[in-house]
Each structure stands twice: as structure tokens, then as C-alpha cells.
């Protein structure tokens, strides 16, 4: 694997929301087990059905979970950035992942050995509760992507996908080929190119040398299906609840009466 230590080591503060949400004392305890790595665009960090050795908490990197069928056709079922963790399967008690994980935007991530993660998952610990809540967000997003892939047009889905990437990227431009977008959306490349040309003609994006520049976010939102908003709500909802997790009180809110 091409990962290497980030030049600045672990000097700068952690930018992953799950790690940051942990109590200071919890984080200090975990930090010796965390290693900052640079992930490169296009790098495959998990192959389907292979044993997982590390989980990743992305910071500036963005990773897509991709499901593949036998003939190689793919569709993206979840985009994971600074708000999440790649390797939730480990948390759920598995050794392998059925999905492939591909880096979509180069950047840093904190990684942790799967054995260390297992040891840290004490019942009721803040880490366990955060990951449980994160699993719920992931379930919601995966189910949304099932409906989105069935009912929404390539144009809507392209706008949704660009907005999600833009939220994660640190600038208004990122590297991306039509071919890889088509693989993510499970659409034909020609279809993606056609829609990208429309967005470019409308002045919403500019596409130059395999880099996409986002010019008009509000315009993209108008072109996107509802799914972009839904994804945002799921993450915002989770982050809003973080203070409650930090009280250390085991709380399963489903039992509250409305």
C-alpha cells in the first residue's frame, strides 16, 4: 500500500469529527494507536472480500464505498469524509468488507489497526456510542442511495454527487474524470459527459484537464435531487447529538416518547 506517514506527523489537530468528538481523555488514550497517513486519489484501500487490517478516519481525504457486480460494473453506496470512518464492518464484528473502498479526493486520514479498535470498543464507551450512531447514519445513506439510483436522473445524481464532493473538498476544485464519476453513479460515461456539458453551459461548473471547478453551489442545489439535502441532514443530526454522547450517559433515545 502506498500510504506513508504525513510529513507533519500528528502535530496538527485531528480533523475527523468522530475522533474530535471523543473526550479529551479518551482521545489521549487512543492517540498512540492512531497514525496519520496520506491517501492518494484513485488508491484502493480495501478490495472486496479481503481481510481488513486498518480502519481509517478521513480528515481531508474522501473515500467512496463502491459495490461491484461480476462484469465489473459499479455503483457508489456511500461517500465517507471527515465525518466518518472507513471500515465500519470491523465495528460490526466482521473481518472482511464486501465493498471496495476507493479514494476520491487525496488527503490525510488517521488510521488505526483493527485489533486496536476491537480492544477499544468497550460496552457503552463514547467510541462505541459514536460508531453506533454513525452506523445508523450510514444505513440511512445507503438506503437513500438505493432509491436515488432507481428513481433519479443522471443529471440530478451528478449534481448531488458534485455537491457532496464539494462539501468535503477543501477548495472549489477537485480532480475527477468523467469515467470515474460514471463508475460512481453507475451510469454510462456518455450520459455523464452529456450532463456535465449542460452544467458547464449553465455556468455551474467548469471542467478543465480532469479537474472540476464548482462555480455556483446554489445552482447545483437546484439541479440536485432531494438526496443531497437528506445526506446533509443525517450528518448534521449526528453532529448535533455529539454533546449528548459526551455526557457519558448511555442513552438510547428511541425510547423517548414524543
Amino acid at each position: 500500500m502506498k500510504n506513508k506517514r504525513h510529513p507533519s506527523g500528528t502535530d496538527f489537530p485531528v480533523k475527523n469529527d468522530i475522533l474530535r468528538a471523543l473526550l479529551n481523555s479518551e482521545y489521549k488514550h487512543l492517540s498512540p494507536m492512531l497514525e496519520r497517513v496520506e491517501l492518494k486519489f484513485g488508491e484502493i484501500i480495501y478490495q472486496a472480500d479481503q481481510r481488513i487490517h486498518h480502519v481509517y478516519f478521513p480528515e481531508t481525504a474522501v473515500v467512496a464505498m463502491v459495490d461491484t457486480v461480476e462484469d465489473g460494473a459499479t455503483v457508489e453506496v456511500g461517500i465517507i469524509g471527515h465525518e466518518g470512518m472507513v471500515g465500519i464492518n470491523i465495528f460490526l464484528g466482521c473481518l472482511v468488507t464486501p465493498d471496495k473502498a476507493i479514494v476520491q479526493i487525496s488527503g490525510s486520514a488517521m488510521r488505526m489497526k483493527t485489533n486496536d479498535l476491537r480492544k477499544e470498543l468497550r460496552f457503552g464507551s463514547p467510541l462505541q456510542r459514536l460508531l453506533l450512531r454513525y452506523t445508523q447514519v450510514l444505513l440511512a445513506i445507503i438506503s437513500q442511495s438505493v432509491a436515488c439510483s432507481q428513481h433519479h436522473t443522471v443529471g440530478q445524481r451528478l449534481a448531488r454527487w458534485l455537491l457532496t464532493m464539494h462539501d468535503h473538498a477543501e477548495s472549489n476544485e477537485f480532480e475527477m474524470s468523467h469515467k470515474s464519476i460514471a463508475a460512481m453513479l453507475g451510469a454510462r460515461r456518455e450520459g455523464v459527459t452529456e450532463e456535465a456539458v449542460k452544467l458547464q453551459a449553465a455556468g455551474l461548473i467548469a471542467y478543465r484537464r480532469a479537474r472540476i471547478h464548482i462555480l455556483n453551489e446554489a445552482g447545483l442545489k437546484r439541479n440536485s435531487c432531494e438526496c443531497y439535502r437528506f445526506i446533509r441532514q443525517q450528518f448534521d443530526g449526528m453532529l448535533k447529538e455529539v454533546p449528548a454522547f459526551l455526557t457519558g450517559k448511555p442513552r438510547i433515545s428511541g425510547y423517548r416518547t414524543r
Partner: protein
Amino acid sequence: MTGTSHPQQNHILDALPQPERERLFPHLKLVELPLGEVLYESGDTLRHIYFPTDSIISLLYVLEDGASAEIAVVGNDGAIGVALFMGGETTTNRAIVQSAGSAYMLAGTRLKEEFGRHGQMLHILLRYTQALITQMSQTAVCNRHHSVDQQLCRWLLLSLDRLSSAKLTMTQELIANMLGVRREGVTEAAGKLQRLGVITYQRGHITVLDRPRLEQLCCECYGVVKKETDRLLPLHPLHLRGEQPLTVRDAEVRVK
């Protein structure tokens, strides 16, 4: 039906160790689930978890315009209401009975108590969640890349595995809703299967006549989901299958 139901018909309940069965089974309530009953709507706060025995429940994602897509089918292999133990406020799915039958219902408060005892229940439900995630992602890729004919085969096989008979009570309109395709597409696909002698279709009843042929006609998606479900939720204790259970120390919650 009620007379013959037993909690251990559900694979999750069956996978529990003896002491946990003894603790939990007295609190289970057997409920009859008629076709079309909605167990919960998207946005509802969950209060119960359901463990189907011979019923099948569809989890649907409902879009703003009312269009829906089936994201998973749950039967005796699983549980309805996994979001309940994850700490979020509400569910984003609709759970609707797709094949009438029974399920055992457990109050959320009991489930919470059980988690508090740090037993196997949470681990079993987490593994089931992984199986559910696999089914959902496979459905996404299948919808995108495989024909309605293949999707119908996948759907029939997944449903059959969760039933004790070869007969499904189901209208083509309902199937179309589940698969998120036009009804005409389902009629056409079902007609082909009928002509091949794989199924018969009469007044809302589908009977599968030739299961091996159905498996041949299906895309690989059925096999992927089945393999993962079998691997994650076997009918044997974890240690017998050469896989380590999640090690969780029963330590106190560390609070600052």
C-alpha cells in the same frame, strides 16, 4: 399459526446463548402481521423491535414525491428496528408486511436492559446490521445494472428463503413498487418465468415450481446476499466457525 410459532424460528433469537434466551423469551410477544400492515413509517420513533418467524417485511425508502424503493427484505433471518439500538431519534425507512405471518415483538426498554448486561445480543444484532448493509448495497448495484427479469428472480429467491413454503401472496403492482419499476415490466418478466415453467401466477399467488432454474436465471446478487447472510448469521455459535467474536471488555464507561 400461533400454536406452532416458537422464538427459535427466528435466527437471531436462536443464536442467543441459553441464559439470554431464558431472560428474554418471557418478554417476547407473538404478534400476527397481516399483509400490507405498516410496522413503522419513515420519521417514526421506534419503540419495539420485531423478530419475524414466518412473515416477510419489506424495508422501503420513500422519496418526497411518494415513490419508493425496497432496500431490504427481512424475514426469519433478521430483525425489524435495528435503528432502535443505535441511538438516533428516528428511522428513515418504512417497514411494511409483504407476506403475512407472525413475529415476536420486544419492547425497546427490554432490549436496552439486555444491552446493559453486556451479553451477546448486541453483537448478534451488529452482525445482522452488516448483513443488512450488504443486502442494501447489492440492491443498489443490482437496480442499476441488471434487468427487471433478473431483479424479479433475485426478489423471489430472497423472499422464498425467508418463507417456509414455495407460495408467495403478492400482486404484480406490489412487486413493481418493491423493485421500483413499472408494473408492465414486472408483468412481462413474470410472464416469461411462467412460460418457462419456473413459476405459476394466479390471482395474486406466485408459486415457484422450479427453484434451481430460478437460481440459474438470476443475477449473482442473490448469491452474494445469501453468502454474506449465512456467513454472518449462522445457526452455530461464533467460535465454532473459526471467527472471533468481537472482544468487548466489560469495563466501566470511562467518564472524565
